[in-house]
């Protein structure tokens, strides 16, 4: 680790995230899985996967939503790639099934309605007991644009769409103050309308009036994760993201990349958690990781922007121990879920936990608590309210439009 900058990294938070994508992150994973190829669409497979991840000691699961792919033949889905169910729904399904796992769906910001996205994520927080997060994506796919009849968004506008969508959600999540539902029998009021707020977002693309149609999420604000580099430095400095996902070309460069980004962020004054991204192929059942990867790549090449670890569980443990000293967490993308998750849960996680490198697991803890984030007050909250007065309506008949 001689390439590390001189700035000393803070102690990481010791979080392990797992990407739970169908049969695995490798596009050919379905070819080497014991289950049938349709496994990525099976609810019972999903139930098993989230329970395995939770009992293995992962802190969070992410659910990817690759959207529509631009293929050479637009009339054909990619021949090698298995279809996925909607990520947010998969996370919601996992909500009542799990007790401690944070559930983080990837949700696009460009070709979605920000009002729906905000409501869906707030609802996910309710069905998971405050364990929801949002992995922000900004689709670059022309197919995604065509599906909703929009022009393809490119370049700097992607960051703007993502930033705008986050802003809409954050304001809507605050638009009901925590104690807006009063259920006051004496006055017949279910809501204290002084604690409901119009958000009045009006950006270059669209406007959103508000308030939300669902009360404030259990966490107040869901933690927002974004790939490093997606959002503008201004949005990051303003706290748009609670965590950034950091990629590097190779595993040994991750710690330095994390340290570099952290130093840059310190200048901006924000402190999002930094989570390293890592693809993982492990030795398993007498097969070397390299042989397994070669076999998989023989079917379909694995193109990924992330660093890739290919080796033994012992080597991976050492690598993670090193990265976790600099990063707040690592998100692992197992090539083949059932194979690599078995190795991870039997060999890697127990050793990391034995060394005290992982955050404790607390059933019922919120995702914000895992990240060490306090529950924020609503931006619209005023001083503690006066006792309920009789007037529940104001004499502004017909004035509002």
């Amino acid at each position: 680790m001689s390439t590390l900058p001189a700035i000393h990294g803070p102690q990481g938070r010791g979080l392990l995230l797992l990407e739970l994508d169908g049969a695995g992150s490798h596009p050919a994973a379905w070819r080497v899985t014991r289950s049938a190829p349709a496994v990525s669409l099976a609810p019972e497979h999903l139930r098993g996967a989230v329970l395995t991840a939770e009992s293995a000691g992962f802190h969070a699961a992410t659910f990817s939503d690759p959207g529509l792919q631009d293929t050479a033949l637009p009339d054909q889905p990619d021949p090698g790639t298995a279809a996925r169910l909607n990520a947010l729904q998969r996370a919601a399904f996992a909500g009542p099934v799990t007790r401690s796992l944070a559930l983080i769906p990837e949700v696009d910001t460009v070709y979605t309605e920000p009002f729906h996205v905000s409501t869906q994520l707030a609802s996910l927080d309710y069905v998971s007991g405050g364990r929801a997060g949002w992995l922000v994506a900004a689709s670059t796919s022309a197919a995604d644009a065509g599906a909703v009849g929009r022009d393809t968004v490119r370049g700097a506008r992607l960051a703007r769409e993502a930033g705008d969508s986050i802003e809409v959600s954050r304001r809507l999540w605050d638009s009901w103050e925590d104690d807006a539902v009063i259920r006051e029998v004496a006055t017949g009021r279910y809501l204290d309308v002084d604690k409901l707020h119009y958000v009045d977002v009006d950006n270059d693309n669209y406007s959103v009036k508000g308030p939300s149609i669902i009360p404030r999420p259990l966490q107040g604000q869901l933690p927002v994760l974004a790939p490093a580099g997606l959002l503008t430095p201004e949005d990051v400095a303003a706290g748009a993201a609670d965590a950034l996902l950091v990629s590097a070309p190779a595993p040994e460069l991750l710690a330095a990349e994390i340290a570099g980004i952290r130093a840059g962020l310190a200048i901006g004054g924000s402190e999002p958690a930094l989570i390293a991204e890592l693809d993982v192929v492990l030795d398993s059942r007498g097969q070397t990781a390299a042989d397994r990867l070669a076999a998989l790549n023989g079917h379909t090449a694995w193109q990924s922007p992330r660093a890739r670890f290919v080796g033994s569980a012992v080597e991976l443990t050492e690598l993670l121990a090193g990265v976790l000293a600099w990063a707040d967490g690592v998100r692992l993308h197992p090539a083949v879920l059932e194979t690599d998750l078995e190795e991870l849960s039997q060999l890697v996680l127990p050793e990391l936990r034995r060394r005290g490198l992982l955050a404790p697991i607390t059933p019922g803890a919120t995702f914000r608590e895992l990240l060490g984030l306090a529950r924020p007050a609503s931006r619209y909250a005023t001083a503690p309210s006066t006792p309920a007065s009789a007037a529940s309506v104001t004499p502004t008949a017909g004035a509002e439009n």
Partner: protein
Amino acid sequence: MNHSTRPATEFTPSGQLQLGVFFQGVNSGTVWKTAESGSQTDFESFRRIAQTAERGLFAAFFLGEGLRLREHLGRPHALDVAGRPDAQTALAALAAVTTNIGLVATQNTTYNDPADLAHRLSSLDLLSGGRAAWNIVTTDNAWTGANFRRGGYLDHADRYTHAEAFVQTAKRIWDAWDDDPIAASASSTRWAAEGAVRRVRHNGRHYTVDVTPRLPRSAQYRPVLFQAGDSPEGREFAARQADVIFSAHPQLDDALDFRRDIVARTLRAGRGANDVKIMPASEFILAATPREALEKKAWVRSLQIGPQQAIAYLEQFWGRELQGYDPDGPLPEIDPVVEETSETRGSGFHGAKARQLADQWRAEAKEQGLSIRQFVSAKTSRGDSTFTGSYSEVADRLAEYARTGAVDGFNISPWLIPSGLDDIVNHLVPELQERGVYPKQYAGSTLRANLGLATPVRTSAGVEAAAAAAARTSAVTG
């Protein structure tokens, strides 16, 4: 599932009833003021209702939707039981803790994109093993549009042509995959068979879609479609497109008329006489004896329409504050301050000539000797959709609906969350089973099977057919 080859030309009563449960909010039907009233937002309330319904072999669990908080005199409505979750997100969670009950999401055609909504409904359908349904609703107002990218773009007159083009596009998306398209084994060269998916394109006045759908069919082929519109256009739309009508005609005679009307429209649309099921919205107030049930009803009504609800109800039509009026006195003698009653400000608000309406209501209340509170209670209690009585009395009444084929079942709105289904499941369901008009077990694991619906016929096969359909749709909307 039965594959119907020829549409039936005559309606045949099945002699059976199905039950659905509509998890309420927003309107005044929900009693939130008693010690037994639980949370309207905690997931546990949803889980409890859904699991109770499943214990009672209910066919479906419904969630409603309103995409903007209702307002009263220009501010969010303080008396509203507001705050419902996103329907599909909550239903995806319920899919994990239920096994047979249908999961019905009310979703608006106006503020969604067809490809996105069809994909999410497909996803819910697969995630639930073929139990998803879509309750199709349509709105037209710019006021709700203020929450969306599109804004308010739809004229009232266009809402059904728009909705129909939307639903046709969704059906084409659900029809786009062939049967059994996914590789049976890992040795296949492709995950999905070559040519198994057709691209869907629509170029209409209100939206453009060009998509190669991502998900194959579910165990029930595609989500079941519910529809609730009661206008002639709404009925025509349902007769052409829907599987089930969530109707507003619960009284036996009225229900029989409605059935005849829908059967005639369904036949004219080229579908079978039994193809569209009818389930009216309803409320049940039950007890061991008729007298106890009547006492319970008085108590429920007093909690549903309190003095503030009564005044607020009139305020929305008068367009002015009426706090000075005695809820137990006569209707206000002052006139409304608006020409039209508030144009749509959320569900249940209807446009009308305000002054004319006030005159009419004052006369009505005077004639019947009703106070504000009594009058509003009568107006809002959905009196004709309430079944009040002892368990056996109500079971006898319902058996008559089954025998005559007036309805296929009832969509029950429990007035209490989360225990509001308990007496129905514990006492009414066994009485119905004894009378032979209610299932003793689920007919299958899909909603379509449990409702006795046939597998749909593919709407288009091949790109050419799809393109032709797109051209026709464009002609309708454009």
